[in-house]
């Protein structure tokens, strides 16, 4: 602690002591004083009103303490306490000859003493300590010399001893008189402090609690020693304290909790808006810093107080328009003065509110990630989201007013991320609560209250702002959120068009993982939307990419996949864990799988039937996971009644393949998870209709070779579809050349022309196809090679101009040889394919 800061108050210390002790005696009656004294001006202590001011500040700090339900020791107590404890430690260390501890403690002692007592009027205890230390030191040095030959002190101890020697010398010289006096009459001098001790004992109720906060400090210099003199937290010396804390911040062994407490107290003392802002700007980040690890999360109470403080900061800024917080402002040198503000001008303070809000939001997410979602804790925590949302909205309005575009975009993105996945009602409730909680004079121009009534309008407004103003990442995310929202509201076409027109899918692989996850979520939601709307094919193609991988959990960040051969490095796993979405944002995976498999069934079963015995066509798989499950299911010797969703769908698929559409329908509608979808009955009806249609198609594919004609009427009764629909389905199949048949209008029958191909014919066709693909593969290879060759030649030409022609060229040729080899391999692959094909043909022939 530099003496410079203390300069002004040194002379006051004696007076202070008196005041404090008088205060102490009156402590019970102090409450009455507070009401009087707190009304008095506090910001500008005139020289004459010093004592009054001090008293005032004291009472104010007490006031804040009362708020926090915590009693604070008087300054006197603390000082005394600190002194005693230091001295005690020194005594202890002396006994064991631990010079390092002595040195540390002595430094602390010195600092405290010089701070609180100044150079005059040193407490006698202190003098006594110095004197005894000097003696001890001399003794030790003597010993040292004697046993030098025998046993050396360890290096650090020796070093500490030496530095102590110098220090003691200095100090003793400083207090020469006092030390001398003490040496002459040790007993008398000791009487005086005893009085103090007597007085303080009854009042010091929480000595232990506070002193426990004191941590022995190795470096010590920056230690603020909060417990020692809270009385001096006045608005006057606030800036100094603040600076001390800021300097200590981030240093090793700084007690963060203590800092936070000091800052909170400072906040209580802060009188002017400027001071409050300054303290808040220090307090909020230090609270965030308290939990440094990426995995641990802020505890809920601290989070709440931080949130309140951010709100407070915003309130101050809203009411005091002449202050503005930017992160572009230069850090001023003269921190300590109240700035002079000319009317009409704004005073800029360095800081970034948006980063506070970001951090607050992140901490909220983190806590949700860590709380078990099946407990009431989670629900309780989730309730805080409304308040967080209110803070975000408030921040947005503030940024808007101050034209902080970048911050506005960021905060709007936050807001959007709290909204996009929620159903209308929730959004509306939240919006209503928030608009009530905000002061009525705060109105956002981007989201006027009229818009917030309708969730779609609100999201539209937010997104449009980001499209216009945001940077590209925010634009992408906004777009994805917007699409998600549309999909959630069953506006499939709009969502699809936005997805296609934005060309997001082209370069989503290049973006960061978080955005990719959002993209995956969006794709899944679009797929589910298509499913709800009865667009089976679209739904399947949307879900395919994500459900087909078998890593759904991972892709949606809804839990870590347990991989069989997982060799993820721990850091990777940690990162993955951080990306997990909180439970309330999850998309139900079982429902997702169910929808995907149902879609696959409706597409795959007719396709398999159409492929019939044609092995080539059979190979064209629409949905691999579905096929795999079906195969697995078919291989089982006994299959019991369906238990889970998959069983149901597999059973349904088999029934559909056999033409038993009714059984299929029953199985599908027995799946319980459909209840999670809105309008369950509608979806079941839709699925029933689809099953009828696909059943008809499957039936026609499967049995067409066994009939010459099929009555349309009969088909219509079999699948309980109207004749018109049957006709239309059959016509479509004929038109698309899926079914070799034609309609006989006179007899109302389908005439089937299907001829089963003989084996030779089939093989001939297949061979022709193989040959074609072989030629194509060859052509492709050549094209590729030509392109590569061209590039190389170009490179060569360029490099030929450089000096290292020869070596370069040699490597080039080597490279090219390598490439030739590789392309030959490709060739072999091509051959390999066709060979494999031939083997297969043989197999089929035999």
């Amino acid at each position, binding site marked *: 602690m530099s003496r410079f800061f203390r300069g002004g108050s040194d002379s006051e210390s004696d007076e202070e002591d008196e005041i404090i002790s008088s205060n102490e005696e009156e402590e019970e009656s102090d409450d009455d004083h507070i009401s009087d004294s707190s009304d008095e001006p506090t910001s500008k202590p005139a020289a004459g009103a010093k004592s009054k001011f001090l008293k005032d500040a004291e009472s104010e700090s007490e006031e804040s303490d009362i708020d926090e339900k915590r009693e604070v020791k008087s300054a006197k107590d603390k000082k005394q306490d600190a002194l005693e404890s230091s001295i005690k430690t020194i005594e202890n260390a002396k006994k064991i000859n631990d010079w390092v501890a002595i040195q540390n403690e002595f430094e602390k002692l010195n600092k405290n003493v010089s701070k609180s007592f100044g150079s005059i009027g040193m407490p006698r205890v202190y003098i006594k300590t110095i004197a005894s230390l000097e003696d001890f030191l001399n003794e030790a040095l003597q010993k040292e010399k004697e046993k030098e030959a025998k046993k050396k002190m360890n290096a650090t101890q020796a070093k500490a001893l030496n530095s102590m020697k110098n220090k003691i010398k200095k100090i003793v010289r400083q207090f020469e008189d006092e030390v001398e006096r003490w040496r002459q009459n040790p007993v008398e001098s000791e009487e005086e402090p005893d009085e103090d001790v007597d007085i303080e004992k009854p009042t010091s109720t929480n000595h232990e609690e506070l002193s426990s906060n004191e941590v022995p400090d190795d470096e010590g210099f920056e230690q603020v020693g909060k417990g020692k003199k809270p009385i001096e937290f006045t608005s006057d010396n606030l800036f100094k304290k603040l600076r001390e804390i800021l300097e200590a911040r981030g240093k090793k062994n700084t007690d963060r909790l203590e800092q936070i407490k000091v800052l909170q107290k400072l906040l209580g003392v802060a009188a002017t808006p400027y001071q409050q802002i300054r303290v808040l700007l220090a307090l909020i980040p230090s609270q965030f810093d308290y939990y440094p690890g990426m995995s641990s999360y802020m505890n809920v109470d601290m989070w709440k107080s931080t949130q309140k403080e951010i709100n407070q900061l915003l309130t101050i800024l809203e009411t005091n328009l002449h202050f503005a917080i930017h992160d572009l402002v230069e850090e001023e040198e003269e921190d300590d003065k109240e700035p002079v503000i000319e009317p009409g001008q704004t005073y800029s303070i360095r800081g970034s509110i948006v980063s506070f809000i970001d951090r607050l939001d992140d901490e909220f997410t983190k806590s949700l990630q860590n709380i078990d979602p099946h407990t009431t804790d989670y629900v309780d925590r989730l309730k805080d989201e409304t308040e967080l949302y209110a803070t975000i909205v408030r921040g947005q309005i503030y940024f808007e007013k101050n034209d902080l575009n970048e911050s506005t975009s960021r905060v709007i993105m936050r807001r959007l991320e709290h909204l996009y996945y929620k159903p209308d009602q929730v959004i509306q409730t939240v919006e209503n609560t928030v608009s009530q909680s905000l002061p009525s004079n705060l109105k956002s121009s981007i989201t006027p209250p009229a818009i917030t009534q309708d969730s779609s309008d609100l999201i539209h407004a937010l997104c449009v702002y980001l499209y216009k103003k945001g940077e590209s990442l925010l634009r992408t995310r906004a777009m994805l959120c917007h699409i998600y929202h549309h999909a959630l509201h069953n506006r499939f076409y709009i969502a699809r068009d936005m997805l296609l027109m934005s060309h997001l899918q082209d370069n989503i692989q290049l973006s960061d993982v978080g955005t990719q996850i959002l993209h995956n979520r969006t794709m899944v939601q679009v797929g589910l939307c298509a499913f709800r709307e009865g667009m089976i094919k679209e739904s399947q193609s949307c879900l395919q990419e994500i459900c087909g991988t078998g890593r759904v959990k991972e892709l949606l960040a809804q839990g870590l996949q347990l991989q069989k051969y997982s060799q993820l490095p721990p850091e990777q796993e940690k990162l993955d864990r951080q990306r997990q979405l909180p439970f309330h944002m999850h998309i139900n995976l079982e429902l997702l799988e169910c929808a995907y498999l149902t879609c696959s069934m409706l597409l795959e079963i007719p396709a398999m039937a159409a492929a019939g015995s044609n092995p080539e066509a059979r190979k064209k798989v629409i949905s691999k996971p579905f096929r795999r499950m079906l195969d697995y299911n078919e291989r089982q010797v006994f299959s019991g009644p369906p238990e889970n969703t998959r069983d149901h769908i597999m059973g349904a698929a088999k029934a559909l393949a056999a033409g038993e559409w009714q059984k299929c329908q029953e199985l599908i509608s027995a799946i319980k998870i459909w209840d999670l979808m809105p309008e369950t009955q509608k979806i079941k009806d839709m699925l029933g209709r689809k099953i009828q249609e696909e059943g008809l198609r499957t039936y026609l594919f499967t049995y067409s070779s066994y009939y010459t004609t099929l009555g349309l009427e009969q088909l219509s009764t079999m699948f309980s579809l109207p004749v018109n629909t049957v006709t239309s389905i059959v016509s479509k199949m004929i038109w698309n050349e899926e079914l070799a048949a034609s309609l006989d209008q006179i007899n109302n029958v389908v005439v089937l022309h299907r001829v089963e191909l003989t084996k030779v*014919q089939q093989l001939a066709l297949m061979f022709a196809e193989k040959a074609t693909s072989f030629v194509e593969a060859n052509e492709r290879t050549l094209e590729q090679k030509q392109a590569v060759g061209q590039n190389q030649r170009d490179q060569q030409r360029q490099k030929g101009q450089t000096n290292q022609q020869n070596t370069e060229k040699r490597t080039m040729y080597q490279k090219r040889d390598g490439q030739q080899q590789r392309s030959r391999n490709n060739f072999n692959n091509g051959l390999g394919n066709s060979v494999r094909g031939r083997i297969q043909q043989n197999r089929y022939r035999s």
Partner: protein
Amino acid sequence: MAATYDLTPKLIPYLDRHLVFPLLEFLSMHKIYPEIDLLKAKYELLAKTNMVDFISMLYKTIHDTEEVPKEFATKRDEVLQTLENLQAEAQKVLDIIENPEVISALRQDKLQNLNFLKEKYGLTDKMLNTLYQFGQFQYNCGNYGGASDMLYHFRVLSTDHELNVSALWGKLASDILDSNWESALEEVQKLKDTIDQKNFTSPLHQLQQRTWFIHWSIFVFFNHPKGRDSIIDVFFTPSYINTIQTACPWILRYLTTAVVTNKRKKSILKDLVKIIQQESYEYRDPITEFIESLYVKFDFEGAQHKLKECEKVLSNDFFLVATLPEFVENARYLISETYCRIHLKIDISGLSQTLNLDQEAGEKWIVNLIRDTRVDAKIDFKENTVIMNQNHTSIYQQVIERTRGLSFRSQILASTIEKREAHQSASTTEAVE
């Protein structure tokens, strides 16, 4: 009904004032909207142009008076004054250009020409721009022929790119209004090239330009005899079909009509069906629905109903009214073609009903159809049915078809490799040296 499917309100935002006028004329002829509303609309439309005489006439009809506000008179004078001034200025330029000596001296290169004229005849950029202004003014006055000429001259000489594009648009509009379809078609082509080649600062701007272009070009495409080929060619290029899908799905009506009435472009039908299906949530009218019920739902009765509606819609559409008989004829072809492909035996009376014809006419129609060898079929007169001959391609034919050309392709491949090797060895020796 006529009003619900009327596209004029949707088209107007993308058209020039002068181009809207014929549409309004047409509407008033067909009495779809109340007369007085249309008159007012016309008045509003033209109030900002320089066709003062016509405006004052309109004013009289609307307000049913002989009194005309004084502004008209003053405006008229002003207009005449400016016209004279501009004409005088433009005349100077024209004198230079129309000089036979100059004409013979002009070359292909614009810049050179301009320099030549500047040096020899004292032509300035400002004088050139008067040509443009005069053209614009004439256009505003309704003298489209004159405007077209002026803009033509301007374009030949000017090197200013922006003004050139504007002149191009102006000339297109003048030609359209002058019913000069030949040159309009040329302009359309030029304009399309300009739009496609120009680098637009934002894709949105390009989209806008394309949308405008699509709307303006409909005038030409449905009036020029070859227009219906070009409309398909132009609108089916990816960039334009995208524009239609994003900005103006109603153009699908015109595109559909063009495809249906075009006998040679049947192959495009599949694409069209796909697009119509895709856009059906955004735009549908009887014409697209007709295609939808025929090719998506295979609902022939529905198609027939839609065809009847189509007739009404077409007769009330400014652009399509002329194509009505052709459309109906071709639509019938499409229906019967699809019908025949799907069916083996067809009841003639049923088909006739589907085609919206009576029994006898239906039979005639089918006979014609068979005679034109569009379908391979016979009529069983006794049972009053048509029997289609199914022709399957045999397996042998399929194999032959699939393998045809393989050997040729392999040969090409071999020769390319040979060439490559030769080249490579040459370059190797070169490198060694």
